[in-house]
């Protein structure tokens, strides 16, 4: 469960990307964070995934107050999240399988077990046949699916995606949506920041609408 109370994020210079916002997301929900460009979607996603720290207010995820976390505890909390970044952030000096292996190496899994799980994740997103391919050789949609495979390989309780279909055509975008919906169906909490309103009609998620850093609906 994610519970935000009076959450504010102010950047150096005084700009408030998120202003005194409160909301809750139940475990197992699929939630869309929508809003125009600059509404604060990415900042909110970064706050939930501990990439940014709140300026004030509290943010409790799975019973842990992220606002009060020490620096050394953050990496361990992040391992419970699956993150799909805006722009994927894939590593182009290694192949698809090795990209997916990274979270498992961080978790300290034995290599054989890690490879088995990475291949299962690639299979889940339809990329097992391309496990040896360098990400640069993959299409935009495939790269996004690879990013999802890396996000879910550690079996996260919360899957967080920031504009996962931003640079994709509508067909590839729908394929990504279907994959995320599949994870939601097996009980994973899915939080997606997007400006794509067509998602709402397709999978009827809960919606957090942001405007000028505040939840408006």
């Amino acid at each position: 469960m994610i519970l935000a109370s009076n959450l504010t994020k102010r950047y150096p210079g005084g700009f408030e990307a998120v202003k005194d916002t409160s909301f809750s997301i139940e475990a197992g929900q699929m939630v869309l964070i929508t809003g125009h460009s600059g509404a604060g979607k990415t900042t909110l996603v970064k706050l939930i995934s501990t990439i940014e720290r709140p300026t004030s207010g509290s943010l409790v995820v799975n019973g842990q107050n992220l606002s009060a976390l020490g620096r050394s505890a953050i990496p361990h909390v992040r391992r419970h999240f699956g993150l799909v970044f805006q722009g994927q952030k894939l590593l182009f000096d290694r192949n698809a399988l090795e990209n997916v292996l990274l979270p498992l190496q961080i978790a300290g899994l034995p290599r054989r077990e890690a490879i088995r799980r990475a291949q299962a994740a690639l299979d889940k997103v339809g990329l097992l046949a391309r496990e040896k391919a360098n990400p640069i050789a993959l299409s935009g949609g495939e790269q996004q699916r690879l990013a999802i495979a890396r996000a879910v390989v550690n079996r996260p309780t919360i899957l967080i995606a920031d504009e996962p279909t931003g640079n994709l055509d509508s067909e590839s975008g729908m394929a990504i949506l279907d994959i995320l919906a599949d994870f939601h169906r097996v009980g994973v909490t899915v939080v997606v920041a997007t400006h794509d309103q067509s998602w709402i009609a397709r999978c009827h998620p809960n919606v957090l609408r942001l405007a000028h850093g505040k939840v408006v609906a």
Partner: protein
Amino acid sequence: MNAWFIHHRAALSAAFRRLWATPLNTLLSVIVIGIALTLPAFGYVALDNLRDLGRNASGVQQISLFMSLEASKKDLGEIESRLRQAANGKWKFVPKEEALKRMQSSEGMAEIVASLPRNPLPDAFIIEPANIEPEALEILRKEIAGWPKVAHVQLDSAWIKRFDAFLRLGKLALWMLAGLFGAGLVAVTFNTIRLQVMAQSAEIEVARMIGATDGFIRRPFYYFGALQGALGGLLAAALVLAALRLLGGPVGELAALYGGNFSLRPPGIVETLGLATLGAFLGWLGAQLSVSLSLRKLD
């Protein structure tokens, strides 16, 4: 297999991969580190050999005790008893008759000795103390000089002091040189690791976002620095060994010309491992400084 062991094994193999991935860079870095360690290491071995040479040179560590001419057998027994208590080492009694015989056998001395009305030489003891530090020898000399019926105690302390001062000066210069080259080694590693951190900034950023601890990110660089330093240390040991091999023959010939038998002692396995460990430590230190500063910039 626990996660700690898996992490360290993975970091070590990542470090080996990085060393192997850029063989020319690795070779050049190892050569620079090797040369930086060779100079102080060679200096250390040379001083060590000089110290051995000084210790083995005949007469250097000996004290000659000359009894007064009227000393009796009882007095000699007393001196022997005191030597047993005071001088931890060896000593040899040289009776005055034997000293005279030796003198007679010396070229041109037979006639002079024959013309003497009586034996002018005293009984003597030649002492080789176990502790041959100049200070200890001087203390022992003073103590012996105060014993009954001792006419004269001779210690070539000036030579020993000069030699010891030279060794101390050499040691100090060596430490300064080692410090200088050690700093150079740290700087070489620092720069190599800094470039690596910059080249892998994308991977570091992603790894942090998906839950990598600082330790996970730093470890491969630490292993890299330590491995590179250790290889440099081993190269330095090999260079010192090669230099000693080259110098061994001429030094032996020189010693033979002076009637001695001296050979250079090469670094042993302990010294070689010590050099590799020192290189590894300095490499690790360079990596530690570099990673800390570079990661702070990436924060």
